[in-house]
């Protein structure tokens, strides 16, 4: 078990390097004097605001949703139904707060789900400890023997 975890750790360190923005090649944050107004706006933009950006002509396709995706969608809507949050809080957390890397890199309903988990913690309905323990418990329930 420990060797599998160590292998996962080493693969993780490679994977996150591939997601770093190019400034990381200098090993440090840019100097404030290098930050133009244009760069400031680009970095602080709302990641969901993509209208008018360049992209390539594409072969359109469709996708069959996973069952967990529909269940996550229902959960986010029911949380709003019962007043835990409203849809606009969800959009902010799911489409902006996550940041550009997660915004473009995660599956669509994955972001819905992460935001639902996050609102439970942010509004103190659960502690992060409770969430972590529950995820761990669920995973253990489904481990092959």
């Amino acid at each position, binding site marked *: 078990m420990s060797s599998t975890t160590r292998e996962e750790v080493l693969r993780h360190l490679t994977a996150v390097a591939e997601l770093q923005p190019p400034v990381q090649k200098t090993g440090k944050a840019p100097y404030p004097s290098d930050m133009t107004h244009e760069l400031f706006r680009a970095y*602080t*933009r*709302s990641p969901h*605001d993509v*209208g*008018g950006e360049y992209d390539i002509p594409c072969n359109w396709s469709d996708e069959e949703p996973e069952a967990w995706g529909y269940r996550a969608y229902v959960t986010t809507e029911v949380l709003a*139904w*019962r*007043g*835990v*949050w*409203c849809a*606009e*809080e969800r*959009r*902010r957390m799911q489409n*902006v707060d996550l940041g550009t890397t997660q915004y473009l890199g995660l599956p669509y309903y994955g972001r819905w789900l992460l935001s639902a988990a996050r609102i439970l913690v942010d*509004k103190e309905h659960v502690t992060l400890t409770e969430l972590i323990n529950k995820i761990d418990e669920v995973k253990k329930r489904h481990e092959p023997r």
Partner: protein
Amino acid sequence: MSHDRTHHAHLATGKGDPQCFKGTAGPAKFKAGDKVRVKNMPDIFYTRTMMYTRGAVGEIAVATHESPVPEDEAWGHVDKSEWFYIVRFRQQDLWPEYPAAFPNDTLQTEFSERWLEAV
């Protein structure tokens, strides 16, 4: 700050949203046909006023409804409302390279009142 999870259901049941905010924003500043420019206000942390509209001049197509603005609603604040408007732009005015061959093409999208100024 206590969070009353029944607030929105009490406010909107039987009415809907944004209908539940009807009458809460006062008089509308703009009306259909008015020429407006989209302001380029600071948009740190959250905006639903797309960058591609900033500084563009268009025409009010219709006043749609009163509602809390997304900048407030995104943090659960629904105590203040503004009028919302669909504004129509000529594509020729939005994009420098929009082909002259298609002079009639338009785009319309919605703004809360704070983002618009009379031209």
